[in-house]
């Protein structure tokens, strides 16, 4: 990594922040902190996408994730009355096997990627314009687009059915 390029400094800062935030997500004893730190990590990924010239995706991340999903999570936390504030019982007793699996996964994924790609640079190509993405959605990717609308519809309807409280007599 060439440290003389400003982009790389941005990357390092964002990456470190994301890793720190994610680590807090999976270790904190405060549920609220976990949810908020996920916001941080996702915001970091949005920043990376800007760095990669994918502004549209970055915008979607901010809107969908940070605007909607996290709110959903906070609702979930509150409705299920997880203790807000520090809680002792959020984790299992035995964490070592999980840590071993996680580190093993990281070693395999990161190691093989570095071994193959080495120092290959991402060429500075012009960013994909949002209008191109719009065209792609409605031409090349129209089938998945329609299908994903069914996924959302099913999740919506089914989610309401499962989550609503039934009348006692029915």
């Amino acid at each position, binding site marked *: 990594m060439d440290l003389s390029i400003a982009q790389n400094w941005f990357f390092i800062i964002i990456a470190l922040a994301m890793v720190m935030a994610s680590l807090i997500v999976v270790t904190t004893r405060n549920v609220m902190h976990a949810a908020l730190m996920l916001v941080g990590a996702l915001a970091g990924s949005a920043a990376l996408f800007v760095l990669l010239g994918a502004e549209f995706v970055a915008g979607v991340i901010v809107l969908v994730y940070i605007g909607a999903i996290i709110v959903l999570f906070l609702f979930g936390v509150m409705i299920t009355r997880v203790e807000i504030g520090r809680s002792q019982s959020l984790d299992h007793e035995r964490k070592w*096997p*999980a840590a071993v*699996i996680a580190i*093993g*996964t990281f070693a*395999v994924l990161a190691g*093989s990627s570095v071994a193959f790609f080495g120092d290959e640079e991402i060429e500075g190509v012009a960013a994909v314009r949002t209008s191109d993405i719009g065209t792609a959605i409605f031409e090349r990717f129209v089938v998945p687009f329609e299908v994903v609308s069914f996924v959302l519809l099913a999740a919506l309807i089914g989610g309401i059915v499962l989550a609503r409280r039934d009348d006692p007599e029915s």
Partner: protein
Amino acid sequence: MVTAALLGPAVLAAIDGAVERSDGGVLAAGAWLIVLVPFVAALAITLFGKRLPRHGAELAVAAVGFVALYGTALLLTTLFGDGIVHEGAVKIGEFGGFEIEWAWVVDGLSIMMFFVVGVVSTACFVYAVGYLEGDVRPTAFFASFTLFAGAMLMLVSAANLIQLLIGWELVGVSSYLLIGHYWEQKENSSAGMKAFLVNKIADIGLMIGIIIAGITVGSFTISKIMEKVVESDAALDDVAVIIAVLLFIGAMGKSAQFPFHVWLPDAMAGPTPVSALMHAATMVTAGVYLVARMFPLFEEMAHEALDVALVIGAITLVIAGLLAIVQDDIKRVLAYSTLSQLGYMVAALGAGAYTAGLFHLFTHAFFKSLLFLGAGSVIHAVHSNNMSDMGGLRKDMPRTFWTFMIGSAALAGLPIFSGFFSKDEILAAFREGDHTIVFLLGVATAFITALYMTRAISLTFFGRYKGDGHPHESPSIMVYPMIGLAGAAATAGFINIPGLTDWFYKLVTTRLVPAELLGEHATSFDWTALGLGVLAGVAGIALGYRLYYPDAATQQERDRLYIPGLWPVLENKYYIDDLYMNGIVNPIKGPVARFINWTNSYIIDFVVNVVGFATRSLGWVVYSGIDQRGIDLAINEAGAATGFAGSKLRYIQTGKVQQYAAALFGGAIVLVIGFWISVT
């Protein structure tokens, strides 16, 4: 392509697709009816049987009666005509270039089997009508029984190995249903399960053998495989031994050859007509039939497999024969005897004696089903399977007694009865092939056979009655089939007397393959083999007579060492006792009597007792030491071990979803690391 698929069924439905490979007249062309009629009857019995006056028995008898008549007609046409060789087929499927078809072959071999299955089935079915009078579920019985007949006929009519396999498996299923017929007793349904599983193990061998054969030849049609055998195809030659051994493993399962024999004695839990038809006359001969059907392959390309068959057959015939001596259950005596006789057939084929093996199959079907029906008649009368509850039935059940005697004489190979010709042809074949050890074992088993049959007859029909109640002769509907079979058991041997008649030889060699590939045929008696065989039989009867004739009330008494005596003059039981009590201490009969008596007591008695004791002990050792403890144990343990593995393995399913997730990742990582190592 899909269009073709949609049109496929329409094309299939039309029988125009049928292929005929050679002609054989109207009778042969319609032979598929032989297979179809029993299946239709089985279906009809299942659906409507309960509403019929005799619960479906009438349909069952009509169906097998039809088969018997058709089989007889075909047999007569072949014997007195040119001989029928016919193959017809309807294509039903295709996979990877293989045509899968329903096909039927009508040639000497299958006609012989149609005849045997038809005639013996008819006898057993008619008998069953009487035997099952008042049974809890006669409809289920006759439905499965008819299904069995159809399956067996499908097996023997199969022109390709796939269909043979299907018939083979169906035979196993119907056997399972019938053995477990009296499921109110737990051991009966377990026996059915055991038969099913042991067979299935061997069947997998058969299936793989069939697949390898099909792949090598490019077709599952038996006649195509035989063509390759005739051409000495190199590719087939390379794998012929593997194919033959795998096919033989399948045959070992169905024909209950050592060490797959364990299911057959337990299968005696089924109703007696079932034992007679399936576990003596037909189903168990399927293995012999398979080897015979594929015989040119074994003979020309896979002689090693024939050697295996010879050894396995020889082991089975001795071991099972010895086992028969020590049974108290009369059906078990016959079951072990069946095993032993199947051993003869398999060993005969192993020695290359195609005709002799099949001839024994033919005669054995009649006399052994007769014996089973006789045993069933006795059981029906005394309500027990144990010979210790029988005795003296000769007077109460004369017709059962006389037919049983004829069957026994045939089994023991007494001259002019059918078993005499077939067994001696096998013994001659052993000698012909220089298989001296197997020949000696065969002679020894002839001796043993006569011994255990004499024992069974003595304990059942002679002496005094030890059971409860007053036994009566069975109803006519049961007796007439026995009389019919007795006629066949007495005379079936005449169709293949060396040097005089060779009808049977002609029959079973009327096939698409040249007769040269079907083994040699004896044209004259081998007097040594014949003499030794008859001698062994007579000696066995004599020893059995000596040991068991003076019937006694308990097993302990029966196994006591009696006063010696080999001759019929010692017929009187009390006279023997008298001799035993006073022989030495009371020399009033003069020096000669004393001398005879002394000789008798010390030398002959010694020899007789040693021989008797040794055979008996050997029987016990084999039964309790090897059969019950070793093989049964091994099979039970294998079952228990898999069960145990299952019971422990299930605990990996802890119910904790995160442990499942960990397993998922763990599995993924193991896969990845495994690859990493293999790639770098």
